[in-house]
């Protein structure tokens, strides 16, 4: 298995650029800095490196993908209804504007570089993600019911589209499954610890607004576990064909398995 030492230095350069650019003193007074998904950045790094892209291109591609993700994640936190106190009102207003600002940055950086094709990839990804988010959020009883495909789209359309664009379409299935797996684990944690209703829960319950009771809480946790186990099985199948190109995902998968003690859980359930 390859060493992963170098990627930290390269990614830290990207993260530095990211935090410098997103910094706005007034926004900072009300909002936390956006959180970057280091796994997303690392997967992109290795994918592009393996295809022989230049250091600078890799830097710019990851940076702009992070702006897009930050914009989407920030907008996801805008409260659904109501104003609240003056401070909450200002916070809501700035959450909308911060997301728009981060989004404008991906366009700005790529426009300066003249990379119009990559601009199109980012723009289409944002559209895909919002389509899927809407599918899950506003489920249409009579039309097509969203499923795990929509959830995967929300988590991975950006990476997937970049993969296809840069000649790594063969990695899409693995990328989709890994980030689905990781996101389900994270959302399950947030639900258990804080009662947080994320995309997965929207999907399971057909609604974003549910009154929690012991029955449906059990249902929700069961759903999470079913999908996590299914994703685990699929991931292991895909990783069996790893020829070295998925070493990073293998490493992270192993770490997540250990962190959540998933193999032990399965053994206990199989009893």
């Amino acid at each position, binding site marked *: 298995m390859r060493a992963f030492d170098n990627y930290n230095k390269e990614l830290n350069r990207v993260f530095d650029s990211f935090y410098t650019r997103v910094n706005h003193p007034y926004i900072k007074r009300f909002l936390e800095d956006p959180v970057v998904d280091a796994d997303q950045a690392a997967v992109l790094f290795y994918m592009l490196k393996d295809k022989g892209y230049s250091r600078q291109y890799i830097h710019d591609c990851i940076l702009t993908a992070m702006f897009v993700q930050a914009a989407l994640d920030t907008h996801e936190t805008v409260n659904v*209804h109501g104003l609240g106190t003056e401070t909450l009102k200002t916070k809501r207003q700035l959450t909308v504007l911060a997301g728009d*600002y981060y989004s404008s940055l991906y366009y700005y950086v790529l426009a300066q570089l003249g990379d119009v094709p990559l601009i*199109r990839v980012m723009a289409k990804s944002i559209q895909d993600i919002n*389509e899927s988010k*809407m599918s899950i959020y506003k489920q249409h009883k009579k039309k097509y019911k969203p499923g795990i495909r929509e959830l995967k789209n929300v988590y991975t359309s950006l990476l997937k589209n970049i993969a296809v664009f840069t000649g790594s379409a063969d990695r899409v299935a693995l990328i989709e499954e890994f980030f689905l797996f990781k996101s389900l684990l994270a959302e399950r944690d947030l639900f258990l610890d804080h009662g947080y209703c994320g995309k997965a829960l929207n999907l399971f319950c057909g609604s974003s607004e549910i009154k929690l009771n012991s029955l449906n809480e059990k249902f929700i946790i069961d759903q999470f576990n079913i999908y996590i186990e299914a994703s685990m099985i699929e991931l292991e199948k895909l990783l069996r064909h790893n020829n070295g190109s998925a070493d990073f995902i293998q490493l992270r998968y192993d770490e997540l398995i250990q962190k959540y003690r998933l193999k032990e859980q399965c053994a206990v359930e199989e009893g």
Partner: protein
Amino acid sequence: MKLTDIYWYLRPDIIKIEKEIEKNIDARHPVLEEASSHLLKAGGKRIRPVFVLLAAQFGNYDLNTIKHVAVPLELIHMGSLVHDDVIDDAELRRGKKTIKSKWDNRVAMYTGDYIFAKAIELATYSDDPKLHHILADAMVEMCIGEVEQIRDQFNWQQNLRIYLRRIRRKTALLISVSCHLGAVVAGATPEVQRQLKRYGYYVGMAFQITDDILDFVGTEKELGKPAGSDLAQGNVTLPALYAMERDRHLNYKIVSFLQQSGTEAIDMKSVIHQIKQTGAIHYSKKVADMYLNKALSALEPLPESQAKEALTQIAKYIGDRKF
């Protein structure tokens, strides 16, 4: 004379642009589709595409090329209105329910994001790399301008420079970009591009200053909201700035109101009356006229044409605007 009368001869092309906008905001999900077209159906002057079309007439006018600018610019404007309504918690726009009111903030955010992304995607079908430099730069500036408007709400320590910078980003920039990009994609000479960019900027500044004047002198019926709404919401505009400089008593009244972030009631009728007494409206009108004259000067070197005449008339229309 109505604004649309000034550029009546462009009507067939404006209809084509409208159809392009309609075609491009379709979406797979029915709520996203309905929300995206909701704002389109509420109407609007489509003034930014009009500026693009008029500016393009100073170069090689080809609607198939120009639409890659005209449509994205209108979509960017639409997307910003969707998000603005979430920011302002607005229930109505152009007499119809806003997206956030008809559905909720989440639907409005997804719709706005979708429309913005669609706009950028459509712009990428233009071959001209300069287009993206100009447009992206403007989008960053507009975002910063919006953030600073929030920051400056209820800020009594403002001055003319802060106000002008704010309205430049908020209004003038997108109009300037519309004129500039119309000329760019039509391959107009750099000098013509420069003049049209300047024209758009000056017209945009005049437009916003006029809007800010009308907020004090218009009636509720004309404005669709109570007079003095800007100040009531903590937005200190040019007439208020001038009046506060001139009248110490009024200054104290407004500063006290702003310091309380609008939580204490203010007799707006009396404040408006006092603002008028200081000559602030007359002064603000002079500033708006100064920008309009600069806009007309920017047009002077351009060759005589129907487009030049239309741009001249638009500038004069803005100057004469009552509501």
